[in-house]
């Protein structure tokens, strides 16, 4: 696919390519074969003749159980769901059933594609739309579909018995930025060859699904002629992430970590601790004290660039 397209359409394209490789499979979820689907996600999947595709009842716990049962039976499945926070209802399955199945043989892939609702004005439950707490509880493999290279990396990776693809509601209809020089390693995407050089340029690191504020900051700094490296997390994987960060961190490097997560239990906190222990200078840009998730709010990650500039300019 070369023409300009939206995140939703590109994910559909990639999903169709994946489905074509299957002998048979099951595609299910609420409203996935009718109407607007999931904000356009999953459109026309039912046209794949090798798939049993159907709309389901509203019962997330049981739908996760359905996918794990199909996996045991050797039938690959894709569960497309709208609101990530409803997956909390199935935490028992992700913690217990998933681990028990790790010792069974001939399992098929169970892929859950979920939309993290970050579009704001949702009410107190928006606090539950955070992948960090979810990741901490479940320790699931989560791909963050926050760029074209992330989507490509997620679909190109070998399918596991259970994994999650997460996409932000705010990006579904947006046009994908063209990329042609990105690599993915250690759960991060970055400009190819960027980290071959053992320099000590600052590193701007985005963690989590939201990239908007980070991207704006990167663009501003580039316009100001500041040299730095930039990386985006595309996979939540504690061991892989920490190993890679550790590998590319030289002592003289300054690191700015952006994370829009609403959790106080951020994976990026672990990364910051690791870097600080290695003697690196680290600045974390998180949501401020203004973020009270008990009330309806606009759900935007607001970044003040001044501390970033001061940190980078401070010798």
């Amino acid at each position, binding site marked *: 696919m070369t023409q300009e397209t939206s995140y939703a359409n590109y994910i559909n394209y990639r999903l169709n390519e994946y489905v074509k490789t299957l002998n048979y499979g099951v595609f299910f979820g609420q409203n996935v074969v009718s109407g607007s689907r999931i904000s356009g996600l999953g459109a026309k999947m039912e046209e794949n003749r090798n798939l049993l595709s159907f709309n389901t009842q509203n019962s997330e716990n049981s739908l996760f*159980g*359905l*996918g794990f*049962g199909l996996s*045991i039976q050797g039938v690959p499945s894709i569960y497309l769901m709208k609101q990530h926070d409803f997956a909390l209802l199935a935490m*028992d399955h992700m913690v217990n059933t998933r681990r028990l199945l790790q010792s069974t043989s001939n399992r098929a892939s169970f892929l859950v594609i979920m939309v993290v609702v970050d579009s704001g004005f949702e009410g107190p439950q928006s606090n539950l739309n955070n992948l960090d707490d979810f990741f901490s509880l479940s320790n699931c493999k989560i791909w963050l579909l926050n760029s074209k290279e992330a989507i490509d990396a997620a679909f190109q990776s070998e399918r596991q018995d259970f994994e999650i693809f997460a996409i932000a509601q705010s990006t579904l209809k947006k046009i994908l930025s063209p990329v042609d020089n990105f690599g993915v390693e250690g759960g991060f995407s970055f400009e190819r060859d960027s980290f071959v050089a053992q320099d000590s340029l600052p590193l701007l690191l985005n963690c989590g699904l939201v990239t908007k504020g980070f991207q704006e900051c990167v663009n501003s700094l580039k316009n100001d002629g500041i040299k730095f490296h930039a990386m985006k997390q595309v996979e939540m994987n504690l061991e892989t992430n920490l190993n890679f960060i550790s590998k590319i961190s030289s002592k003289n490097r300054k690191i700015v970590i952006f994370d829009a997560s609403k959790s106080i239990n951020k994976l990026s906190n672990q990364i910051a601790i690791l870097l600080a222990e290695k003697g690196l200078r680290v600045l974390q840009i998180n949501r401020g004290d203004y973020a009270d998730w008990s009330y309806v709010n606009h759900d935007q990650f607001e970044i003040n660039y001044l501390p970033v500039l001061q940190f980078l300019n401070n010798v």
Partner: protein
Amino acid sequence: MRRSQYQIHEEIYREGTSVPIHFAFGHEAIAVALASNVIEPDRILLPHRNIHYHLALGARPYDLLTEYKLGISSVSGKRLGSMNLDFPQKGAIYTSNILGNNLSVATGIALGIKVKREKAVTWCVTGDGAIEEGSFYESLLLSSSKQLGVIFVIENNRWSLASEIVERRVDIDLKLLAESLGSQYEKLFGNNVVEYQAKLSEIREKCVESSSTFVVEIDLKTLGGYFVGEGGSSRYVNYHAGKAQHHSIASRVIEYSNLDPVWVSENFINNDASEDGLK
């Protein structure tokens, strides 16, 4: 089978170990009937109380004991302990220690069987406590809606931990509930193994032919309970898990002998409950 359970009970608690086995004294008839109706490639999904099904499927008591102590034997071939123990070579492929988690997994397995066009049923065992979980309603609805060949076997001993049904909720009319969701319903009682076998055979045949969901309620009594308190405040408490009141096994079996005539003398158990005896 009951003797085997007693033997394991005596052996495992001889040294005061705290392995939380949910013994199933009094549940044997349905386990034997179900096991004798399993035809490959049928699948069985069990709950945390599963020792009777493993014995009925042919597990040796000594091997169960080994697995309970987190060793590896020919039963699961893994270190799953008592509440997650499976027996894949006999079709028991998933056991959940989480109340009700096996229900929805059963629907996925049954859908997989349908996709692969296999002639098989999915047996899913649970109890009267687990049917209070939302997962039961969700899974029954899912199974009926997709016309899946699942037989939900509900062991109704009327107790959840130390609470009787009357203490915790209204009586659920399972027939009404099952039929309202498009499932078929049967009730078995009396602990007659031969009758149970015949009935389950008939249900299995219908399930395969029509690819429909069944709820089969089993009325049974769990043996091994005990009394707490003294005098007028004395109260019977159902056996749930772990070590049964030693003195109560034989005496309570006698007490409930009208409901469950199968019992084994305590002396006989004690003489045979050794590692050599279990082998």
